[in-house]
C-alpha cells in the first residue's frame, strides 16, 4: 500500500491519490479509466471496467457519460472539479446489476482525466431507497388527498350554485305564476257572473281566457322542469343539428303568422347540451315575437355565424320598439320587466334565466339597441361549439 506524502497544503499529492485508487481497484472496490484530451480511453483497470474499450471515446463504452463531454472537458479549467453521475444502472432482464457511481476528475500533473467507477454504497442505496419509498408514498397520498379535496370543493361549488339557481328560479316562478293565476281567477269569476245572467257566449269567452292562462302556467311549469334538468351530465351532451332545431323553433313561433321570421347564416351540427341550447334559442326568438309592438308585419332575423374561437355567434334581430340602453343590464335580472306596449305579460323563464343558462355553459349574451336612434333590438348569443361533459 502506498504511503501518502503530505503536500504543502497538508493534503496527499494527486499522484498518490491515483495510486490509492489503483490499490482499491486491485481489490475490486472500484475501477478506473484514464482518458485523453478527446476523452478516449487510454487505459482502464478493475472489475467494473470490463465494458470499457481502450482507444474508443469513453461515452461509447460508458453511455451514462453521453452528453456530458463538454462538462468533463471543462474540468481542466476548474480546481478540484468533478463530474458526478450517481446511482446509474444498466437495465437488464434480471434487473439486479450493480448500481454505480461515476466520478470524473482532471489530473493536472498527469494531464489526463480519471474516471472512477464505484458501486453505490449498499447502505447508501438502502437508505436512499427507504427515503424515496417514504417520499413516494407521501407524495402519492398527498396527490390523492388533493384530488379528493378538489372533487369535494367542486361538488360544493356546484351544489351552492344549484341551490342558488333553484332559489332564484323559485322566486321568479312564484312571482310570474301569480299573473296567470290571477287571470284564471278573474276569468272564471267573470264566466260565473255571465252564466248567472244567462250570457252563455260571454261566459264561453271568459272560459277561453281562463284556458289560455292555464296553458301559460303549464308552459311556465315546463320551463321549471327544463331548468331543473340543466345539470351538466356527460350523457346530456349529444350531436345537435342546429339548423333543424332553429327551424322547429321558428316554425312554432310563426304560429299565428303575425310576423315574418327568417333564418340565415350557417347552422352547423355541434356536440352540445341539447336542452339548454333549445331553451336559450327558443326564449330569445319567442321574446322577439312576443314583445314586438306591432300586431303584425314585423321582421325578425335569426342568424348563426362562427364566432371567435370555438363558439357559435347567434343573433336574433327584430324591428320592434327597441330597448332603452338604460335597461340593457336590468332586463337580465329577475323581476325586471320593461312596461309592455302591446299588453304582453312577462316571460315565464325570463331573460335572467336565459343569461344564467348561457353563462353556465361558458357562453355569453349581449343586447344591442337604442330606440332613440332606430327601432329594433339585436340579442347576440355566444354559445360554445363544443361542450365537454
Amino acid at each position, binding site marked *: 500500500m502506498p504511503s501518502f506524502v503530505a503536500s504543502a497544503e497538508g493534503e496527499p499529492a494527486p499522484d498518490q491519490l491515483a495510486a490509492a485508487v489503483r490499490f482499491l481497484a486491485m481489490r475490486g472496490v472500484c475501477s478506473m479509466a484514464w482518458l485523453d484530451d478527446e476523452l478516449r480511453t487510454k487505459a482502464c483497470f478493475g472489475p467494473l471496467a470490463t465494458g470499457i474499450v481502450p482507444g474508443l471515446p469513453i461515452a461509447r463504452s460508458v*453511455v451514462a457519460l*453521453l452528453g456530458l463531454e*463538454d462538462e468533463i472537458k471543462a474540468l481542466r479549467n476548474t480546481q478540484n472539479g468533478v463530474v458526478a453521475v450517481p446511482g446509474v*444502472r*444498466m437495465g437488464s432482464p434480471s434487473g439486479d446489476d450493480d448500481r454505480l457511481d461515476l466520478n470524473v476528475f482532471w489530473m493536472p500533473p498527469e494531464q489526463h482525466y480519471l474516471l472512477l467507477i464505484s458501486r453505490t454504497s449498499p447502505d447508501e442505496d438502502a437508505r*436512499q431507497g427507504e427515503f*424515496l419509498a417514504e417520499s*413516494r408514498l407521501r407524495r402519492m397520498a398527498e*396527490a390523492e388527498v388533493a384530488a379528493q379535496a378538489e372533487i369535494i370543493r367542486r361538488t360544493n361549488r356546484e351544489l351552492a350554485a344549484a341551490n342558488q339557481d333553484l332559489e332564484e328560479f323559485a322566486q321568479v316562478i312564484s312571482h310570474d305564476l301569480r299573473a296567470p293565476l290571477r287571470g284564471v281567477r278573474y276569468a272564471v269569476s267573470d264566466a260565473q257572473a255571465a252564466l248567472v245572467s244567462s250570457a252563455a257566449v260571454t261566459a264561453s269567452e271568459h272560459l277561453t281566457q281562463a284556458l289560455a292562462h292555464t296553458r301559460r302556467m303549464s308552459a311556465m311549469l315546463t320551463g321549471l322542469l327544463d331548468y331543473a334538468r340543466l345539470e351538466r351530465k356527460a350523457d346530456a351532451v349529444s350531436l345537435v343539428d342546429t339548423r333543424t332545431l332553429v327551424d322547429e323553433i321558428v316554425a312554432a313561433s310563426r304560429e299565428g303568422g303575425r310576423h315574418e321570421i327568417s333564418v340565415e347564416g350557417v347552422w352547423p351540427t355541434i356536440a352540445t347540451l341539447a336542452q339548454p341550447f333549445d331553451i336559450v334559442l327558443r326564449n330569445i326568438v319567442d321574446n322577439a315575437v312576443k314583445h314586438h309592438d306591432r300586431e303584425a308585419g314585423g321582421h325578425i332575423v335569426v342568424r348563426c355565424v362562427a364566432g371567435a374561437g370555438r363558439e357559435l355567434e347567434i343573433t336574433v334581430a327584430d324591428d320592434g320598439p327597441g330597448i332603452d340602453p338604460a335597461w340593457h343590464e336590468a332586463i337580465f335580472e329577475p323581476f325586471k320587466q320593461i312596461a309592455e306596449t302591446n299588453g304582453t305579460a312577462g316571460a315565464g323563464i325570463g331573460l335572467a334565466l336565459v343569461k344564467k343558462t348561457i353563462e353556465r355553459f361558458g357562453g355569453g349574451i349581449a343586447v344591442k339597441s337604442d330606440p332613440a336612434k332606430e327601432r329594433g333590438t339585436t340579442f347576440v348569443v355566444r354559445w360554445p361549439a363544443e361542450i365537454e361533459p
Partner: protein
Amino acid sequence: MITRKILLLGEIGVGKTSLVRRFVLDELPTDYQATMGVDLYRYELKGLGPAKDRAIELVIWDTDGSYGHSIFSHVYAKGASGALIVGDVTRPTTLEHMAALAEAFTDAMPSRHFSLVLNKVDLTPPDDKLLPEPIRRSRQPKVWTSAMTAENVNVAFRETADAIVRREC
C-alpha cells in the same frame, strides 16, 4: 450510426419502467417496483429520417419519478436530445403533472423534441376529454400506449427517435 440520449419523465408509478422494458426487452410489466436513481437502456432503431435510411442508438434514461421538475437541474438531464413525458390516464393528477413537466422541459431544454405518452389505455380507453387543457392543446405528438398490451409502445419510441434524426438531418 449516431447515439443519442433520451429521458423518460413522469410522475411516480405512471409506467415509465414498464414502457422501456416492454420496448427494449419485450417484457410484460411485473409487480410495481419504484426506480431509484436512473436505469439506462440501449436500443438501436433503423429506417428513420426522411429517406428512411438513418439509424440511431437510443440511450434511454429511465429516471426516478421523485425528482419532479428538479430533474432538469440534475446531471441526469444534461445532454439529452429528447424526452418521452409519460402520464397515467387512470390518474388525473399525473396528467396535470405531465403538463407541468412539458412546460418545464420546454423552458429548460428549448428546441429539444418531446412526446406526450398517455399510458395504461388498457385500463381506460383513449379519450381527449381526459386530458388537461395544456396537454390537449399541445402541438407535441401524443401517443396513447399500454405497456401491458404493448399497444403503441414501439410507436412512441420510434416517433421520438425519428424526430431526433430529422432534426439533425
